[in-house]
């Protein structure tokens, strides 16, 4: 199943790269009459400005994937830094980090995203920051939990006894052993990121026009569901496929990193 997920993701990445290479045409150019169903010249139809939907979906995939990947990477780095330090050191530092995480956690995700977008002004930076802030609490918590467990392992104690300094212990011993948690959680965060980007765009706080993102396309397509269903079909399917694929890959990753036994009740 996770091979299927990877395949889907690979196709999406190809899509995005194709858009960068100009395949499919200029996503912003007005190429034909408005709201045309799929046909030659516009293989996925045209939108309400007479633009071809195909290059827009391709651009949208790229924007959304890139945005969420960068955001999740940031989340991973920050969560790793804070989670590991808090988990290993404990004490006041831990208290402080956990309290901050709790504060962020207490904000409903999309409200947090809206506030960030309102403060920073809509656009990629805001979407990026929103995704980071929304995904960071859970990730930090889990990394911290894993770091606490790892800190009590004998090999960490051995390293300390050998006289290893803090950075060495954290980088050589704790980090590699919480990396699995980070990776698995990262895939889930990625799907959350995509959803947050979509939600923000839906509420009008997303990327700037004319740039397309999946969220923007779906938001626009949604209003034309009756008149031009092809507007939402393409991006909708791609968005769901992307999140699903990422989740499936995440599940696969977890099964691989933390294989579990099963037992029947009979």
């Amino acid at each position, binding site marked *: 199943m996770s091979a299927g997920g990877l395949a889907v993701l690979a196709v999406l990445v190809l899509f995005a790269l194709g858009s960068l290479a100009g395949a499919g045409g200029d996503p912003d150019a007005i190429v034909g009459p408005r709201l045309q169903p799929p046909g030659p010249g516009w293989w996925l139809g045209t939108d309400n400005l007479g633009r071809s939907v195909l290059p827009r979906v391709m651009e949208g995939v790229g924007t959304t994937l890139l945005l969420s990947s960068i955001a999740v990477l940031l989340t991973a780095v920050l969560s790793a830094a804070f989670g590991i330090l808090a988990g290993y050191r404990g004490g006041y530092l831990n208290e402080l980090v956990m309290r901050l995480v709790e504060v962020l956690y207490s904000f409903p995700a999309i409200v947090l995203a809206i506030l960030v977008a309102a403060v920073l002004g809509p656009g990629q930076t805001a979407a990026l920051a929103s995704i980071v802030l929304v995904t960071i609490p859970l990730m930090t918590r889990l990394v911290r939990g894993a770091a606490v467990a790892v800190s009590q*392992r*004998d*090999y960490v*104690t*051995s*390293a*300390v*006894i*050998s*006289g*290893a*300094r803090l950075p*060495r212990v954290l980088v*050589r*011993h704790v980090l*590699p*052993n919480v*990396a699995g948690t980070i990776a698995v959680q990262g895939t889930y965060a990625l799907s959350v990121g995509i959803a947050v980007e979509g939600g923000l765009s839906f509420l009008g706080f997303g990327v700037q026009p004319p740039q397309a993102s999946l969220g923007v396309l779906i938001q626009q397509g949604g209003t034309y569901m009756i008149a031009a269903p092809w507007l939402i079909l393409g991006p909708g399917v791609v968005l769901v496929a992307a999140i699903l694929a990422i989740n499936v890959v995440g599940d696969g990753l977890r099964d691989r990193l933390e294989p579990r036994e099963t037992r029947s009740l009979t």
Partner: protein
Amino acid sequence: MILELDDVTVTFAAGPPFRRIHLDAMRRVSLQVAEGETLGLVGESGSGKTTTSRVALGLQRPTSGTVRFDGRPFPKRRRELAGRMQAVLQHPHWSLNPRMRVGQSVAEPLDVLGRTERNAVTEMLEHVGLGADFADRYPHELSGGQRQRVSIARALVTRPGFIVFDEAVSALDVSVQVQILNLIKDLQAEYGFSALFISHDLGAVRYVADRIAVMRGGEVVETADTRTFYTAPAHEYSKQLLEAL
């Protein structure tokens, strides 16, 4: 004396604030380990053995009492002791970093000291009965006994004067236990380190220790020569322990 614990008490506070329970994990414990000597430490679960070892390793500061290593109190900075004391800990499964190759694990104490003697690592692996080709393996490719051998190699690679074995063989199979115990004995004969050997298995302790200390409820209730202890235990509790053997 390589290690002297003098009247050491360790008190833990547990539970929520305002309603802390204070618990003496060690109460007025005095112990000495002489150069080249192996001191066995036995006692039931929760009697304070691990706490004692942590105090001996300088990982736990005593609430009261003094600890001297090599005649001096513990330095403020751990690094000054780097390479001079080591430990082999209980759980073979977690004794090695699963993300590091065996060779890297064994080399770590050297790295910390800034030394890079690659052949010291392979030499040490040979010494503990593992071929040099083990250096490239990951811990999950090893059996429990092999992992404990790697831990021992890591502990010995800097030729420390003092090693703590905290339940180092308890998790192993009897037949593997004997391999490891033999190995410890052989290496000690060769390198002459002192050791604190902790176990709740009196059989294992008898096999390697020169002297034995018995702990109960945080206190040392008896210290004696191994032979004396097993033939004529003085304390009532020691007698009980020996009966169960």
